[in-house]
């Protein structure tokens, strides 16, 4: 099921890329992603992570429970993420966005974006297994997070703490690891 918003988003991205391609169809392609906002990119990335991660069944309430992307603390995405995930399904589960105000209920969230304002480490310790933690900044990983957005030469990239993920019973695709800027194993 494709929603109009999604299509529009994609089209936007596509147009951008096309422009880039038209301008420079040479050997090494450099994607000029400045046109998208950082938040947009991160939102996209956040959503995309779900495609490269495998949760154990115990991470869900039920077999038909949706895949919840929860945002804890600051919500930099606003409507963007909602629009992105609207009507999307990953691994056969509907993707929903939740905003947390406290600790996540166990099994209620599969992905938690921990905003900057919280004492992340302590909070994250309270998370049960089966929760992918995503945050900003390289120190996120120090805090125990699994995927940290970083800015690398103007591009949004991410570092991955694979150990942390596996400790939470999460399996990260090699493909994802490949794209990461760095991977801590």
């Amino acid at each position: 099921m494709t929603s109009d918003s999604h299509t529009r988003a994609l089209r936007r991205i596509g147009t951008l890329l096309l422009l880039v391609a038209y301008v420079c169809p040479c050997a090494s392609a450099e994607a000029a992603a400045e046109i998208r906002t950082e938040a947009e990119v991160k939102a996209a990335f956040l959503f995309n992570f779900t495609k490269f991660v495998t949760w154990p069944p115990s991470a869900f309430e039920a077999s038909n429970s949706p895949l919840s992307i929860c945002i804890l603390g600051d919500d930099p995405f606003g409507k963007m993420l909602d629009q992105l995930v609207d009507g999307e399904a990953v691994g056969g589960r509907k993707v929903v966005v939740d905003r947390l105000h406290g600790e996540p209920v166990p099994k209620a969230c599969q992905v938690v974006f921990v905003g900057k304002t919280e004492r992340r480490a302590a909070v994250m310790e309270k998370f049960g297994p089966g929760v992918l933690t995503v945050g900003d900044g390289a120190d996120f990983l120090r805090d125990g997070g699994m995927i940290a957005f970083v800015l690398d030469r103007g591009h949004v990239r991410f570092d991955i703490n694979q150990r942390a993920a596996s400790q939470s019973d999460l399996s990260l695709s090699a493909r994802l690891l490949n794209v990461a800027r760095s991977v801590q194993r």
Partner: protein
Amino acid sequence: MAMLSLRDMPIRRQILAVTLLVAVLALLIAGAAVIVTESFLFRASMQRELEALAEIVGDNSTAALQFDDAGVATDTLNALRARPHMVSACLYTSDGSFFAGYLRPGTSECAPVSARDGVHATAGAITASRSIILENRKIGALTLRYDTGELAERTRMYGAIVIGILAVSILIAFVLASQLRNSIAGPIARLATAAGSVSQRGDYTLRVAKDSGHEVGALVDAFNGMLAAVQSRERELRDARNSLQTTLISIGDAVISTDTEGLIVFANPVACALLRCPVADMHGRQIDSVFRIVNEFSRTPVENPVRKVLRERAIAGLENHTILIAADGSEIPIDDSAAPIQQDGQLLGVVLVFRDVTERRRAQRDSAYLAAIVQSFDDAIVGTSPEGVVQTWNDGAQRLFGYSAGEMIGRSMRVVMPAGRQQEEDTILQSILAGKPVVHLETVRLRKDGSSIEISLTVSPIRDKSGRLVGVSRVAHDITEQKRQAEQMRQTQKLESLGVLAGGIAHDFNNLLTGILGNASLAMEDTQLHSATREAIAAVIEASDRAAQLAQQMLAYSGKGRFVVEDIDFSARVRHTLPLIRSAVPPAVELKLDLAAGLPPVEADPAQMQQLLMNLIINAAESIPEGKHGVVEIATRLVDGVPGPQILFEVRDTGSGMSEETKARIFDPFFTTKFTGRGLGLSAVMGIVRGHNGSIAVSSTLGQGTVFRVLLPVSAGRMPKQAEAKAPAVTPTNGNPATGLVLVVDDEPVVRKIATIALERAGYSVAVAEDGARGVEAFRREAGRLRCVILDLTMPVMSGEEALTQMKSIRAEIPIILSSGFNEAQAVRQFEGKGLAGFLQKPYKAAALLTAVRKVANGA
């Protein structure tokens, strides 16, 4: 064209060419196949590899694409640099714009995305196009382009290998082919050469060497064998031809053969001799000019049989009566036949065979003549083998035995022998075989119809020139008739002698009776007789009359009774006699009459006919047993006979019938089966019938009855109703006194005495003579005074006939009365023209005598 030249190429080159061609073709095809397959497979594997690669690379690039990390994507793609044949590896985003890619140095652009996922070929490259899908969504596409240069390289490599192999193979093939060629083409060539020289020179002694064991070797063997066979066949043919030639030359008949045009091709010496034409002259000439034939009688030319054969393609024989005219003009009767010379249905010529048949003809004529003699011979001439099998059977034999030649030839003579005489054949053959020259015998044989015949048989051996017995000839002569006639003659003689006896007796008897009767009648004239005496004398007369009747029967039997001939209707006579018949027949016997009306008359004596009727009918009636009912049928009919029509008088009775022995003797005189009977009745009948030129036949069945059939010839109308035997100009005078001299000539004294007494009583004077001579003498003496003469017929010394003649010559006008016991008609006929004045039947009464004398004497 090309094929033809291939076929005509010499074998050695052919073998080589074909072998090499085959090898090359095979290898080329194989090589090409290999290459093609290889490249095809390689291409396929390349494609598969590319596809796999595309999958892997695509997979690996998913995240980069999703996360928009062109760098990572590029890195991934660049890894493909390791493959020198990778031309380009490019990632596109979902909207088709370029994302990241690797281009081989020298390549200017990325392979575009194709509409469908998959591998497709482009010039010199194959391109894999793959959509990158994440979570069921196409996020981009990947194209990998591969340079098929590798393929080309490989193909070239293979090609080189193949060619290499080819070259080697050709070499090997060449070597092997040469070997083969030698082993095959060599012998074949030798065979061909040998065959050529054999047919050219006709030399069948050539043989070809065999140097291999395979089919060509077998061919060589067969060839050699064939040559050997042909050689021996040639020899046989030569021999046959020679012997045929010899045969034709030696053959006794003339042989000429012509071609299909009729030109003479061959003529044997006999032909030349017959035609009087030398061999050299005959060859090449038309058959018609040499073989000239004409019809023996008409002299017209006859169609040449050779022409006929050429026309009809069938064997032709000559017509009969053909004469060959030889070159020198001599004429020879010939027999010939011409036949077509054919082979496999094709006419090659004609062969004519002919021979001089002059000798044969002559022999045929002679033998035909002899055969005709035998055939026409009246008697039976039969030729049999020494074993008795009939071989020839002439017309005479057919007439005698009733069997035709066809029925008898091949069978034994026993066929015609009655049962009782079968051994005769054995006896005959034994005698002949024993060397007896001739066998005569009289014997009985059976005809085809079962009747038996008596034959006189003469059997003699038939010997060939060397004296060897080759057959038996039998000549048979039918003596049945002879014997029958002899028998009949004997019978007739017997009867005749009996007749003579009877006649003699009757004659004497008559004379004696004349005495008795005459005297008795004289005595009766004495008026002074006592009645008793008169009665006694009357009785004497009556008895004498009866005795006279008996004598008449006897005379009738002997055929010499009194004869008055009239034309009689037999049916009328029967009716006339009927009252008499009825009174004579016992009442128990039924009389049936079947009398034809309008019967033509029979020349007969009515009294004798009556006698005949009576005798037969009474005989029939008496054959019926006494008291029993029986039937006597009397029938008269006109029938056809020989020489003319006859009257049949038939008496049929249902009496006791007769046995064969009885039947044979019934007509014998003094033979009777009855107690009362003198046995003269049927004898008299027989005599009467014979005297009337008729015939009588009897058939009888013992116990059933008897039939008597009398046939009398129809009157020719010669005899007048009344026998005119009377003397001319007899005028009855009553009151004339009975005076004058009468001469009585009779050898019987009693008759003389009676006549004298009677005549003298009447007033005549009588002179007597006791035989013819004395009678004539007396006549001469008393001629002047004689009134008439009474002359007896049968007398010694001179018969009445002779006396009459003499007397008449002395004095013709004196009437002479003939007296005899025999029949008047006969006497009259006998003495016709001799001037008999009258006739006196013995025994006569005095009154009769006087009446007769008076009648004639008055004329004197």
